[in-house]
């Protein structure tokens, strides 16, 4: 099965797949996830603080995003919004959708982290004289993020693979690059396994980073 022709195609295509991986898939993941974290922290804080109207908005956001497919969200933003005059380039459109989508999931993760911090930590901060925001920023949120870290790492690993969906809105990331080579060479099995293995390598690196991160954070224990 692994004829010389196939081996030739695999080695020729390797860098043509890897390079979009490094220049599109990874930046897309890193930028989207960073934005997702910002969204998630804000949404989690709103829910935790129990500010009535804002909390309803936050819950609505989480409800809608978690209740609709990522692919549908990508299509709505990229193919749908032009109908109302909003045209967004493929890459930024993907960043927006991935950030908003992942933000909803991570918001729940961080909210759970905040709720896992014993209430005494908040009271201790109050007794020292700190304001709510000071306690949040310096005491509760660091602990909540520490608690949420493994789950958040899980989300990044999940997201790097989900970025392959961006191929559907013409982002030439790793998967689309592979599809193009398949269309030319008619070797889908070998090439899709090849791109799968590259994803696997990316995720392995992330898993290592997670372990390293956990060790670094392990200076204190929750």
């Amino acid at each position: 099965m692994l004829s010389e022709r196939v081996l030739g195609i695999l080695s020729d295509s390797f860098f043509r797949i890897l390079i979009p991986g490094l220049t599109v898939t990874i930046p897309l993941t890193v930028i989207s996830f960073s934005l997702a974290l910002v969204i998630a922290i804000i949404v989690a804080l709103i829910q935790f603080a129990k500010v009535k109207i804002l909390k309803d908005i936050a819950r609505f956001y989480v409800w809608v995003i978690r209740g609709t497919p990522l692919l549908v969200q990508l299509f709505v933003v990229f193919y749908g919004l032009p109908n109302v005059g909003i045209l967004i380039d493929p890459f930024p459109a993907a960043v927006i959708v991935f950030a908003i989508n992942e933000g909803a999931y991570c918001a729940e993760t961080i909210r759970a982290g905040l709720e896992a911090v014993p209430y005494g930590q908040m009271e201790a901060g109050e007794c020292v004289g700190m304001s709510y925001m000071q306690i949040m920023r310096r005491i509760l949120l660091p602990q909540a993020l520490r608690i949420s870290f493994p789950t958040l790492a899980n989300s990044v690993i999940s997201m790097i693979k989900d970025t392959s969906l961006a191929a559907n809105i013409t982002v030439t990331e790793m998967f689309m690059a592979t599809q193009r080579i398949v269309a030319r060479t008619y070797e889908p099995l070998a090439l899709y396994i090849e791109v799968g293995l590259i994803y696997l390598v990316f995720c392995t690196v992330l898993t290592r980073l997670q372990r390293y991160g956990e060790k670094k954070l392990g200076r204190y224990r929750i």
Partner: protein
Amino acid sequence: MILSIKDIKKSFGEQNVLNGISLDVEKGDVVALLGPSGSGKTTLLRCMNCLETPDSGVMEFAGNSYNLSALSSREKASIRKRTGFVFQNFNLFRNKTALENVTEGLIVVRKMNRKEAVEKAEETLEKVGMASWASHYPFELSGGQQQRVAIARAIAADPEIVYFDEPTSALDPELAGEVLSVMKMLAEEGMTMVVVTHAMDFARNVSKHVIFMEHGVVVERGKTEKLFSDPEEERTRAFLRLEEI
């Protein structure tokens, strides 16, 4: 008079926890709040430091008057800036070292510069015998050590009064001993303290006044020697007898 509380009332739903408690504390006084579990001692202490909001009650503290049932956040901040609070289960900031637990309030609330705050914190940790543990995180400390750091955190900013909420109830007798000896030292230095406690030795030997509570009211109050040697109320006598055993 540094602290004077008038007629605090507090209920949780149907349950009346405090039925009109009044209390005066002189500067340098050490007041032990005694009473069976559920008598409202802890709730009273928490109301005094705005951790609970009573249904009614007025507090005169350090020359200001506060309506405890409707405090603004500015008023709460001004009360807490001059008080320290020690919890039953320590509540040290878990993401901060012993030293950082003490410097946190000095830097963030009191706007001390870092160097000054560290000096002050080291000095305070020294006082409670925890200087050599300054760089350790709470999980690396025994309960008694954590509580001593918590006391350092409560007194570092030179509060007018320190509240202790059953500071030794979560500790075995040996660890409780090291915490009580720190508290005794503070009392001897003239620190004003209100202590909710079940440690009868401490109440008897260190406190200057005792307030005995039950069912949200003060049953009896007075000088420590008097209350222990010759209590007026039968209920107080019965309680002290039981606690002796």
